[in-house]
C-alpha cells in the first residue's frame, strides 16, 4: 500500500511542477503550487501511517495553514494586478527584473 502512496504523491508533485513551469495563467500556477503542497502532505500523512507516528500528521496541518495564508496573499496580489487592468499572464508580469 505504502509505495503506491509515494508514487501517487510523486506523480502529483510532478504534475504540479509541470503546471508551474508550463501554464501562463497565474491562477492555474497557484493551483499547481497547491498541488505540490498537497503532494507533500500526502507523503507526510503516508509516512505517519507507515511509521505509526502522529508527527507527520501534525506537519501536514502546519503545511495546510501555511498554504492557506500563502493563497490569501497570492490571490490578493492577483486581484490587485487584475484591478489595474493588466492581463493575467505570468510571462507578461516581468517587472521584477527591474
Amino acid at each position, binding site marked *: 500500500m505504502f509505495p503506491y502512496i509515494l508514487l501517487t504523491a510523486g506523480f502529483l508533485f510532478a504534475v504540479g*511542477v509541470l503546471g*508551474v*513551469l508550463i501554464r501562463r495563467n497565474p491562477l492555474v*500556477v497557484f493551483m499547481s503550487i497547491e498541488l505540490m503542497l498537497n503532494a507533500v502532505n500526502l507523503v507526510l500523512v503516508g509516512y505517519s501511517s507507515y511509521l505509526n507516528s502522529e508527527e507527520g500528521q501534525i506537519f501536514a496541518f502546519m503545511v495546510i495553514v501555511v498554504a492557506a495564508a500563502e493563497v490569501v496573499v497570492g490571490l490578493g496580489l492577483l486581484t490587485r494586478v487584475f484591478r489595474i487592468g493588466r492581463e493575467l499572464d*505570468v*510571462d507578461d*508580469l*516581468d*517587472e*521584477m*527584473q*527591474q
Partner: protein
Amino acid sequence: MNPTVIAGLSATILLLPILGSALCGFLGVPLGRRFVNWVGTVSIGLAFAAVLVLLALLLHAPQGHQSSTVVLWNWLSLGAGSNLGVSVNVTVDALSVWMLLVITGVGFLIHVYSVGYMEHDPGVARFFSYMNFFIFAMALLVLAANMVILIIGWAGVALASYLLIGFWHDRRSAAVAARKAMITQVIGDVALVLAAFLIFVNLGTAPYCPPGAHCPAAAGGAQHLHTLNLPQIFAHASSLGPNSPTLTIICILIAIGAFAKSAQFPLHTWLPDAMEGPTPVSALIHAATMVTAGVYLIARFHPLFDLAPVAAGMVASVGMGTSIMAGFIALSQTDIKRVIAYSTMSQIGLMIFAVGIGAYAAGLYHLMIHAFFKALLFLAAGNVIHTMHDEQDIRQMGGLQARMRITAWSFLVGSLALGGFLFGGMFSKEDLLGFGTVNGPAAPALYIVGVAVNVLTGLYAFRLYGVTFTGEPRSDLARHAHEARRVMLIPVVILAALAAVAGWVLQWPVTIAGFRPAFVDAFLNPVFHTAVSGPIAHEPGAGLAGIGFVIGTGLSVIGIAVALRIWVRRDLDAPAWFRGPILGWLPRLSFHKLYIDELYDALLVRPGYALARVLRRTVEPEVMDGWVRGVTGVATDFSAGIRSVQTGLIRDYASIMVFFAVAFTVALIIAAGLVH
C-alpha cells in the same frame, strides 16, 4: 620669589588675553563696538599691570634667585615610573619678563590705537579677538619652560599672524599674503619640531639623578630622564661636548625656525607682503613683537648656541647679510608700510647678528628700543594712511608736516631713533655693533658691514620722512589731510616719548665723563651667565667702544644728512647719478627687491605648478584612475554576466529552482550510493 605668586601671576598674564579673545569673539557681535573696545584693551592693560608686578618681584629678588620655573599643571603623563611627560611650566626670569614688558606694554598702546583705527570697520570684534589671541600666544611662547609648550606658542603666533594679515580676506592680495606668511612660518615650525626631536633624543634622555634620591655612581643606576623641559635640557647641554656636530645641527634647525619667524634671508619674503594687514597689526606683530621672537628664541637657547660656535657664526652672518640687503631694498620702495617693513627686517637682522655673536643683552636691548620706535613709525604711518583714505603710496603724499603736526613730529622722533642719532637707536644699535668689533666670525668684518647698514638706515629713514612729510602735497588727498583723533595720537606720543627717552636712561654703549648707565646689562646678564656655558661675548674695551660709537654714529649722521639734502632740501640730486647706463641697474635691483620673489617664483612656484599640471593631466587620469577603473571594470563585467539570468519571468526562476532541486537530489542519491 614665591612660586605660588609666580604661578598665579603667570596664569593671569596668560588667561586675561585669552579671556578677552573669547569674549570679543563670542559676544563681540551681539554686544557691540563699545564692549569690544573696552574688553579688548582692558584685558591687555591688566596683563601689563601683572607684568609690572612680576618685574617688581624680580627686581627685589635676592641675588641668585632671579629665575623661577613653576609647573602650572601636568598636561601629559605617560608611564607611571618614567619621567616621560609634558607639563605646562613657565619660566619667569629677566629674559621672559623683558619680553613680556614689550609684548603687553607696546601691545596695550597698539590696542588703544586700534580703537581709533578700526572705528569704521565692521569686523572690529573679530579684530580684537585675534589681537588678544596673539598676545596670549606670544606670552605663552616667552613664558614656556617646556619645548612642547614653546612650540604651541610658536605656532599660535603664526596662526594669529595669518588671521590678521588676511583680516580683510575679501581682498585677494591679502589672502595670498596671509597664505605666503603661513607657508613660510610652517617651514620654520618644521625645523623647530625637528630640533625638538633631536634635543629629546640627545639631551632629553640623559642619565639623571633626581634631587634627594640615592643614585649609584655607575651610569646604569641613574634614572633616565625623558623630558623636553628647557632648564634640564640646558643643564645637559655640555654633555655633548663643545663643537659636537649634533649640537650644531640642533642649533642650525633652531636658527631656521628663528629665521622664518624673524623674516631673515632666505625666508624673508613674507614680511613685506604681510603689510596687507591692518596697520596696528603691522605695528604689533610685524614690527614690535612676533618677528622678534626669533631673537628671543636664540637668546633663550643660548646654552646650546654658546657650545656651537659654527651655528652661532652662521646666525650672525645671516643676520648681518639680511640687514644690509633689507636696508638696500628699503631705499627705493614706494609703499610707506613696505619701507618700514624692510627697515624692520634690517633692524631684526642686527638683533640676530647680536645674539649670533653672543651679545644677548645688547640684542634684547635693541629689541625693546626697536619695539618702541618701530611701533611708533607704524602707528604714525597708520595715521597718515587713515587720513589718506587707505592710500599707501608715498609718491601721492608730501607736505603732510603742516597738516598733521603731532604725527609728523612723532615720526621725526621715530626716524631719528631708527637712523641712530640722538634717540633710541643711537644707544642700542651702537651697543650691539660695538660687540661686533671683537666678537663673531672674522671679528671686525661684520662690524664693517654693520656701519655700512648705518648709512643705509639713515638714508631710507629720512627719505621716507622727507618724501612723506615735507615738500608740496602731490595729490588732493594729501592736500586735504588732517590730524588723527586723540585716541590714535596718545599712543603715538607715548611711544615717541619712550623712543626718545629710553636710550638715554637705560644703557649707553660708552662711558662719558666716568658715567655710564648699564641697567639692561645688569638686568639681563645674570640670565646669560648662570648657565653651564662656554664663553659669551667679550666686552669691547672702553677705547674701542668709544671709537666704534663715534664711527657708527658718524656714519648714521652722514646717511641722515645726505638724505636730508636729497629729499628734504632737494639741493642734491643724488638719484641722478644712478640713472646712467653704468649704475642704472642698482636702483632697479633695489626696486625689484633683488628679484628674490621672482627667483622663488621660478625655482619653486612654477616647477610646483608644472608638476601639479603633469600629475593632473597625465598621472591622475592614466595611472591612478586606470587601476581604479580596472577594478570597477571587473566588477561591472561580472555583474553584467550575472544579470542576464534575472529575466523577471517567474517561469525562469522556477525552472532554475527545479533544476537545482533535481540536481541536488540526484547528487544526494549518488552520494548515498557511494557510501554504501
